[in-house]
């Protein structure tokens, strides 16, 4: 599966990564090589095999629906790049 620079631009947008035009060709080559490696799995017939999501086939553990954590908003916001009045600040989204 050969990817070209327009594929890389599309993937980078989906992943929200500002890949510079200068890096696109290099990433296209690297990603193509990795996908060639991945394609080796196509040699194995997996018809009828159950997909495995968890090594021990564990199901999600449930707990009673009550609050277990105290509110630590101030501590968590202390490490944020920009906050105001308990809110995270980002560039204006709606004009």
């Amino acid at each position: 599966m050969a990817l070209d620079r327009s594929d890389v631009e599309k993937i980078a947008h989906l992943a929200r990564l500002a890949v510079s035009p200068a890096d696109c060709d290099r990433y296209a080559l690297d990603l193509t090589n990795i996908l060639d490696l991945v394609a080796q799995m196509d040699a194995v017939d997996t018809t009828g095999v159950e997909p495995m999501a968890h090594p021990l086939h564990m199901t999600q553990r449930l707990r009673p629906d009550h609050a277990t954590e105290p509110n630590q908003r101030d501590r968590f916001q202390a490490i944020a790049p920009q906050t105001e009045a308990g809110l995270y600040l980002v560039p204006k989204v709606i004009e």
Partner: protein
Amino acid sequence: MHDQTMTELAAGLRVGTFSSRELTRHYLERIARLNPALNAFITVAAETALAAAALADQAIAAGTAGALTGIPIAHKDIFCTAGLRTSCGSRMLDTFIAPYDATVVERLAAAGAVVLGKTNMDEFAMGSSNETSWYGPVKNPWDETRVPGGSSGGSAAAVAARLCAAATGTDTGGSIRQPAALCGITGIKPTYGRCSRWGMIAFASSLDQAGPMARTAADAALLLQAMAGFDPRDSTSMDTPVPDYVAGLNADLTGLRIGLPKEYFGTGLDERIEASIQAAIREYERQGATVVEIGLPNSPLSVPVYYVVAPAECSSNLARFDGVRYGHRCADPKDLEDLYKRSRAEGFGAEVQRRIMIGTYVLSAGYYDAYYLKAQKGRHLIADDFRRAFEQVDVIMGPTSPTTAFPIGAKMDDPVAMYLNDIYTIAANLAGLPGISIPVAAVDGLPVGLQIVGNYFDEGRLLNVAHRLQRETDWHLGVPVGFE
């Protein structure tokens, strides 16, 4: 003092041969003197370490000391430590100070361990050479022109160079075992779910597992004893009793059935490494073990399947780094999309971006069945191979890594060549099985690791089997020149 194992250090502290403050100062002095050449530490926490050591000395005097009280260790910089920077080897988290401790950190602190600092690592644990770190590569103490392995390369180098008594690591595709092999130390990746992942920065959540990196299997047993166990804060933590690992170390090996997968001894394996592994297996036969040839026919699937599953989970886990709540934020974003895209492109290095893009691609609309679903089915076949093997044998042995430590820079331009370093270690992660690497030889002065894979929750047996070899051989006692 640094030439002693943790077991010996604990005894020295208990009888008062030295205090934890003396021991901690001694390691801090070694770090100050020897770390600049190795770059094994990202952050050294001298002040808090000495304060913890003073408390440890009080506990020892009061007779309330635990198994690890006063012993100086280091944490891989992937474990959150309250008040002490946790960078994950990334510019993204260069200034990140976690508001809480990881469960593993909390448990080791409760057992009395003193934290000297945080060790270098491949960025977000993505790498096999410790060269993808934002803080620069770690040098292998056995040859400073070579890599220590990765991603827990800083922990492995620090333990091998005697800059700490032991360290924590994490293993998603070999990141404890491969650097342990390349640096000549003992490293165990427990069963998936054995140690809590809470507070351990996530890379691939169905594969990530924490474990100890130490000089000997006995030391690894002491550490794992404190690290392992159920944690309600980790939804995949297993509620399975933790046996007494130390008590089981000396169990006799008569009748132990060792499986040798024919797929692990073929093309691509250095002949001298193969001979070293065979020599270790002969020692086990001498101790009463029997050897059975087994097949793991789906082994060739491991690397391809892993490079779908791990990047897919990585792209999802790393979506949280958005420049909004914590971590790196770009300057002067013109809108929200620009904020996300530039913060992430500036914060992540090339290997992390490659893996995020592969993961994004394989999970994108129209490709899911061909990649992710196919990989999950392949994963099942790999796990089934092991299930069948463990009907015939107790442990599986083979090389940890196809080569010894390679030169810095040798594989950085070829991601696929780098990925193939983990050809023998990845399958255990995909199946969720425990594995240990112990040093069993040196080739051209560089350590060779023997990998022992066990059945689910059979860490005790792995430590026992490793310890029995270390009782009869001295490979684990080797010290790199300049670090004696």
